[in-house]
Each structure stands twice: as structure tokens, then as C-alpha cells.
């Protein structure tokens, strides 16, 4: 790496703004940085910090009505020639010859960022056709080679498939293959792992690192997760509201942060490194209390023959949080839905103990019984956007279960106001619609709706996965506060061991429909007995650049011959 100090991209005082009816919104306001040849620069910040717009400004692909107002973006080509990308016409030939060829980009949503009706081979090979006019047969060979590089199994058949036939991780590999097609010098990765679960994230980060080394690429990596930054960055740029808050080497930023905002970002990740304070203070839960929910040998087989839940047994004690952890496809969500009888498991028992001490098997409960029980057992969903009706006000959303329970008039209004206060929302916002709220606030609305009828058990399915790391601990803290106030029990479903470690009393690990390990959280986290649990734990990004773990993480391979999709 003799050229490692060469600057390949120099951004100086970049200004990108969006003209709206109410005035000009400066999304990027005077951002400067340098990207060095062969190095990784992480741009980190919460959603809305302008990090993504910065990345898109470089290629001049900012969505309308955003425009670059000022500053320069100087790209130094391999032959030493320089070009200021900010000066180029965004629809012109010059910028197009840079896009995909000198600088390639991958995006957050690998599903929607790829066309659903074009074969992946065609989409990958396209850049070759555009920039080099590579003939068809040769293009196919090159695409096969790229698919091999990104480790997609059976490239010969995969090349003719469509995106919806791949899992999220595989789709992101397709995106990476597409970006590598013309051997670009710079790869811009815009939150490429945010939509993936922790184990897949670790694999994709690994892959990007390896390809970066073998291709000698510079990487501009956009993320909100300080843990990821610590694992991969050489240099870090911290952004907040369109401005650079701090800029330095990864070691400086993590071990001697100067800016308060940086400290807060690091703090929110470090907090998730251990158990929540509010849990450490709490008295032990009686181990011999009669269980609130006792699931025995529950199994669900889908009509396709897929055994989604396979002989699962678990108990939830009053007042405790049971974590269910596993990667996507492990059956954890299906299992959670079985508990509410959204799916009907074919075998086993779901014994629920009501407040009066009677025990009902929810698996065989009839409709009127279920209606009663669903008032006591409620659900919080992952997607805070999709799970709230956009045509109802916040008050209407929260009031819905109360109305179903027969509450009306003034009593209803008061209860809604009280609930909003309880979850940290201003009751004055009651007439607003969900789109006026941020992701974290929306999840609070979902929580308020869930606790409105004073349930005893809440099933939270990936309740914090769609949130920025900095918001996660806040929502988790809120859930624990409510738990202590209301004596709630939680079944907390997540792919992320760190949030499980933060809030759960006990944890059960699911893999391909089966429970492979269960026990006290401390024990499972610190002394895991099953190899799969070890793999899950070691895939969590560690927020200390001096102790990078992902590359040396423990990988789990199922004992039977496993096939990856």
C-alpha cells in the first residue's frame, strides 16, 4: 500500500439543499472530507443527519428537488487527471462515465433497489454494457465470475433468477456484484446492512472488507450504527443536521471523542453492551411463581410442508421478559404469532393463566374465549410505519382497542391522554397523523395502543429493529418502565443479541423452528452452550476499534448438510 496516503476524493464545503414550499432546507451544509486510496471512511449519524444526501451528492443522484448549491467534489483518477463532480451536468455524459465505472454505489434496501422484473444477471451486466460495450457472451462470463466473487451459491442457475427468489443477504450480495462489475475505485455503501439481521450483517461487512482489499477500493460507508463503524472504519466523519460534528481516525473518535454528539452516539451503543440499569436495580423475580404462560411441545407445519415451529416448549413467569432470538427464517416470528393464535399450531399446548388463576389452553380455545384473551395478550410490531393506519389520528389509533372494549366519550379521551403521557408523547399531539411523527415516536404510539386495555402479556416482534441504535435503548427503557408500573410480562422477539442482553431476564434461542438453547440471559450470553448461540453473539458489532471481532467471529454450520438460498 505505497499509495495509501493519496487522496482519491476530496469534498470541500459541499452544500446540498432541497427547495420546499416553506423555504430551502439545507440537507448538507458545508461538509468537507477526504477519502484516501484503499481506505474506509465511515459517515455516521442518525436518520436525517444528511449522511445519505452527502453520499448521493457525490454521484449527483440526489432525489428531486435536491440540488448541489456549492462546494467541490474532486475525483482523482488513476492516471492522475482530476475532475470536479459538483460542476458536471447531472444528466450529462461526463458524470455518467463516472457513475458505476469510477464510483459505484450500493443501497440500503436490496429488495426495492433492484428491479423485480429483470433477471439479476442482466442487472449486474448492465454496467459493463454501458461503459465498455462488452458483448453478450463475454458479459455473461464476467457476471458469473462476479457472482462467484460475492459467494452466491450455484452462480450458473442464480444468474437467471429474479430478486424475489433470493434472501435479503443474497440480494445485498447481488447489489455488491453489480457495483463491482466495472472494477470501480470507490465504493459508496449507503446503510447496506441496516435491513439485514445481525449474522447476515456480519457476513456482508466481511465480504465488503475482503473485496476492498482484493480490488484495492476505497469505501465510503454510510451508517447510523457506531458498532459497525468500530468494526470497519479507518476514518470517521460524524454528521448531525447536515454538518460535520467530528472528523478523525477511528481510534481518535472512539477513544478520545471531542464532540458531545459523538459521545452520545457511542454511549447509545455501549449502553446496549450490558444489562439495563433499571434491570440491575430490580428485585429478583420469584423463580417458583406460577407461570403466566406455559407452552408445551408446540408445532406448526405450513401447508407447503415447512416445519416453521418444531416442538417448542417455554414458560413466561409473571413480570419477566423472555427473549426469543434467532436469525430471519428461524421461525421466531411465526412462533410469536402462534401464541396469539394468528396462526393455528397443529400440536401442543399454550396454557395461559388468567388473573383469577384459571388456566386456558389457547391452542384449543374457541372464538369468544380468544376474544377475551386477546385483550390480555397483545402485540407490538416491527414496522412502526406499516402497523399504524395513515388515515387515523394518533388518538383514534390508541383508542381503537378501548372502543372495542366498550369505552366511550370523556372516559375514552382521558384514558388516551393518560396513555400518551405514559409513553412519553404530548397529549396535545392527539389530533396528528402518524406521518408527522419520527420512527421512535411511532413505535411509542404502537406501545400505547398495546397497553391501552391493560394487558398482562405483550408479544413484541422486533419492536426496535427498524429504529436507529440511538433510539433503541430509549424505547427499550420505556418498555421496561411500563413493565414495572403495570406488572407486564413480555415475550421479546429479536434477531439482535444486544437488545436481548439489555432487557431480557431469560432468553430462548431458536434455529430452524427449534429451540436450541434456553436459560437465564446472563448465563446464555456469557457461557453459551450451543454453537449457534455463540455465532449469534460473536456477530454483534463491538464498539471498540481496538478489539474488532466480526472478522474473527464464530461461524455456525448446521450439522446436517446445510443449503443456503
Amino acid at each position, binding site marked *: 500500500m505505497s499509495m495509501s496516503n493519496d487522496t482519491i476524493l476530496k469534498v470541500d464545503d459541499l452544500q446540498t439543499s432541497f427547495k420546499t414550499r416553506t423555504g430551502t432546507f439545507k440537507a448538507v451544509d458545508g461538509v468537507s472530507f477526504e477519502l484516501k486510496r484503499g481506505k474506509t471512511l465511515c459517515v455516521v449519524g442518525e436518520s436525517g443527519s444528511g449522511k445519505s444526501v452527502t453520499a448521493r451528492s457525490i454521484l449527483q443522484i440526489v432525489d428531486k428537488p435536491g440540488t448541489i448549491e456549492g462546494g467541490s467534489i474532486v475525483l482523482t483518477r488513476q492516471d492522475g487527471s482530476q475532475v470536479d463532480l459538483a460542476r458536471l451536468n447531472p444528466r450529462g455524459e461526463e458524470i455518467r462515465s463516472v457513475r*458505476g465505472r469510477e464510483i459505484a454505489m450500493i443501497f440500503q434496501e436490496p429488495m426495492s433497489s433492484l428491479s*423485480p422484473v429483470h433477471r439479476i444477471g442482466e442487472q449486474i451486466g448492465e454496467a459493463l454494457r454501458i461503459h465498455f460495450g462488452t458483448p453478450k457472451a463475454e458479459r455473461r462470463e464476467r457476471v458469473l465470475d462476479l457472482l462467484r466473487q460475492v459467494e452466491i451459491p450455484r452462480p450458473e442457475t442464480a444468474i437467471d433468477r429474479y430478486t424475489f427468489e433470493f434472501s435479503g443477504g443474497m440480494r445485498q450480495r447481488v447489489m455488491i456484484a453489480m457495483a463491482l462489475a466495472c472494477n470501480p475505485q470507490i465504493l459508496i455503501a449507503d446503510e447496506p446492512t441496516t435491513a439485514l439481521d445481525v449474522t447476515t450483517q456480519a457476513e456482508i461487512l466481511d465480504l465488503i472488507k475482503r473485496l476492498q482489499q482484493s480490488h484495492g477500493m476505497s469505501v465510503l460507508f454510510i451508517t447510523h450504527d457506531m458498532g459497525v463503524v468500530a468494526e470497519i472504519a479507518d476514518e470517521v466523519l460524524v454528521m448531525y443536521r447536515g454538518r460535520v460534528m467530528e472528523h478523525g481516525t477511528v481510534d481518535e473518535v472512539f477513544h478520545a471523542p471531542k464532540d458531545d454528539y459523538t459521545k452520545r452516539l457511542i454511549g447509545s451503543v455501549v449502553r446496549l453492551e450490558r444489562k439495563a440499569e433499571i434491570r440491575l436495580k430490580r428485585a429478583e423475580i420469584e423463580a417458583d411463581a406460577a407461570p403466566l404462560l406455559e407452552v408445551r411441545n408446540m408445532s406448526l407445519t405450513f401447508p407447503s410442508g415447512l416445519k416453521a415451529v418444531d416442538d417448542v416448549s417455554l414458560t413466561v413467569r409473571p413480570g419477566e421478559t423472555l427473549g426469543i432470538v434467532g436469525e430471519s427464517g428461524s421461525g421466531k416470528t411465526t412462533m410469536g404469532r402462534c401464541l396469539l393464535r394468528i396462526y393455528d399450531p397443529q400440536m401442543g399446548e399454550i396454557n395461559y393463566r388468567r388473573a383469577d388463576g384459571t388456566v386456558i389452553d389457547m391452542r384449543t380455545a374457541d372464538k369468544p374465549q380468544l376474544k377475551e384473551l386477546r385483550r390480555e395478550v397483545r402485540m407490538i410490531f416491527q414496522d412502526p410505519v406499516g402497523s399504524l393506519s395513515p388515515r387515523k389520528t394518533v388518538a383514534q389509533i390508541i383508542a381503537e382497542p378501548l372502543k372495542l372494549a366498550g369505552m366511550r366519550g370523556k372516559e375514552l379521551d382521558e384514558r388516551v391522554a393518560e396513555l400518551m403521557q405514559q409513553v412519553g408523547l404530548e397529549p396535545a399531539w392527539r389530533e396528528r397523523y402518524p406521518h408527522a411523527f419520527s420512527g421512535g415516536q411511532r413505535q411509542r404510539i404502537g406501545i400505547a395502543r398495546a397497553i391501552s386495555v391493560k394487558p398482562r402479556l405483550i408479544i413484541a416482534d422486533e419492536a426496535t429493529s427498524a429504529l436507529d441504535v440511538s433510539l433503541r435503548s430509549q424505547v427499550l427503557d420505556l418498555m421496561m418502565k411500563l413493565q414495572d408500573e403495570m406488572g407486564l410480562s413480555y415475550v421479546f422477539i429479536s434477531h439482535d443479541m444486544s437488545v436481548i442482553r439489555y432487557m431480557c431476564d431469560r432468553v430462548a434461542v431458536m434455529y430452524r423452528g427449534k429451540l436450541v438453547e434456553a436459560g437465564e440471559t446472563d448465563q446464555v450470553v456469557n457461557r453459551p452452550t450451543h454453537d449457534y448461540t455463540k455465532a449469534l453473539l460473536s456477530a454483534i458489532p463491538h464498539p471498540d476499534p481496538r478489539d474488532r471481532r466480526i472478522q474473527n467471529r464464530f461461524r455456525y454450520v448446521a450439522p446436517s448438510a446445510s443449503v443456503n438460498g
Partner: protein
Amino acid sequence: MLRYIARRLVFAIPTLLAVSIIAFIIIQLPPGDYLTTLMADWASQGGAVEAGTVAAMRERYGLDQPMYFQYYKWMAGILLHGDFGISFELGKPVTELIWSRLGFSLMLSLLTLCFVWAVAIPIGILSAVRQYSISDYVATFLAFFFLAVPDFLMALGAMYVMSVWFGQSVGGLFSPEYVDAGWSFGKLLDLANHVWLPVIVIGLGSLAALVRIMRANLLDELSKPYVTTARAKGMSEFELLIRYPVRLALNPLISTLGWILPAVISGEIIVSVVMSLPTTGPLLLRALLAQDMYLAGSLILLISVLTIIGTLISDILLAMTDPRIRLT
């Protein structure tokens, strides 16, 4: 795929059966039958008919039997012998009357469809890409205007304009000298000279609807992340537009074929009456007025068959162009 088509064809049978029954009932719904209409005609011309003659005729046409039996006889004739019955009024077999006219109807409908698609897609694209521009507003205004104007009024207006201002012979598909002539190059040319006006008149309503749909589809697709991905590859804006968002916006448009086709066919019937085209339209109208039930029933049945086939074709096309649709 073949299994899917076969299954869809099997499903079409009960639909057709239901259509034939409903068509038959509707034709019979007005009080009286063909003979009462005939009597009224004769009476108005000053003639009188003996009661015995009427009864004899009624028996001969089978009109004295209950409705379900008449239906059964008609259906049995179609299915077993390909015999659609006899037109009372014209005294000829229905098959003989229909075929030549059905051919023109089909031709007119297909030409209209091609015209509608060929014009709607580019205008829709332009309207979406230049959203809120002058051209978008003009296209939008015209689209709503033509959506609102009924077919027959448009036909009358077009005929007036063409004959008064341009002195063209309007009405019909041929000039007088070619109407009964055999097919020749000259006749084909003459047809081409006449056919464009009805095609435009029938098509404008559907055209306007399709422009709106194409615009809305494309506006949805233009903001999708895969467009940004393609742009980041270095693709030119025009190639990008055609290859990605337009390609995806076409899928929902294909499924509109299912309802555009019936709209075109029923529009064709009305417009043909106004412009006196030699298609099934005027024939159907006359048969309905005269309660000439076998002729009217057969026409409605055949038009329904065409519609069902059109819907099937649109489903198959959609399955071929969108890999997300799995045929099972």
C-alpha cells in the same frame, strides 16, 4: 403455463353459460314477443291479421313453449349443430347474417385497441416525466374532456366536422362504389380511408383513461429506489426511463386490457349505429327492437366470447411479462 390456459378456458364455460342465460332472459323481458311486434307493425300499416294465423305462426316459431324450453332448443342447436337459429325478421339463418359483420367488428375493435395503446403510452409517459408542465396539463385536460364526452356524441360531432368542413364522405366503412365489390387493393385502400374516423371516435374515451393510468403508474415507479440504482450505474436518462420505470409501469396497463376490450366493443356498437358501419352494432340494435331473439341472443353471446378471450389474453400476457406472477 399450458395447464393455466387450459384451466382458464374451462372456467370460461360457466361464464359463457351464465352470459347466454342472462342475455336470453333480458331479451325476453319486454312484454310480448317478436310476433306482437310484427302485429303492431302490420296494424300500423292498416293491415289486419286473423287470430288463427298468429297462433299458427307462434307455434311454427316455437314461441308458444315455455322460456326454458326455447332456451334449451337454442343452446342444443348451437352446441350440437353449430346452428344459432333463425332470424325471424330477415328469415335467414343467424350464422349467415353474422359472420361477415362479426369480422368487421373484430377488425374495428382490434384496430381501436392498437390505436389506443400506441397513443396512450407515449402521452402517459410524457405526462408523468414532465409532471405539472404545460404538456401535462394539456394532456390531463383533454383526457378528462374525452372521458366525459359520450361515444355517440363524439361520433356525431366528428361526422359533422368531417363532412361540413372537409367535405369527406362519412358513414360506412366503404365508398358507395366499393360496398358490394369484391376484395381488391382499391377496396382495401378505401377501407383505410374510412376506418380511421370510427377508430378514433371509439378509442378516445379509453385512450383518455389509459393516459391517466399510465401517468399514475409511472409516477409511482419513477420514485422507486431501483431507478436510483440504475442511474448510479451510469445509464442515460432516456434508456433508464424506458428500461426500468416504463417497463414496470406497463404491467398494470396490460391488465387493463380486460376492461378496455369490453369498453371498446360496446362503444363500437353505439358508434357503428351512428356512423352506419357494416358491423354487428346496427344489426344488434335492430334485432333488439324487433325482439328478434335468436339473432340478438347470438350476437350478445359472440361478443361475450370475444370479451372473455380478450381477458384471457391479457392475463396470459401479464403472466409472461411479470415474473412475480406464478401460474399454478
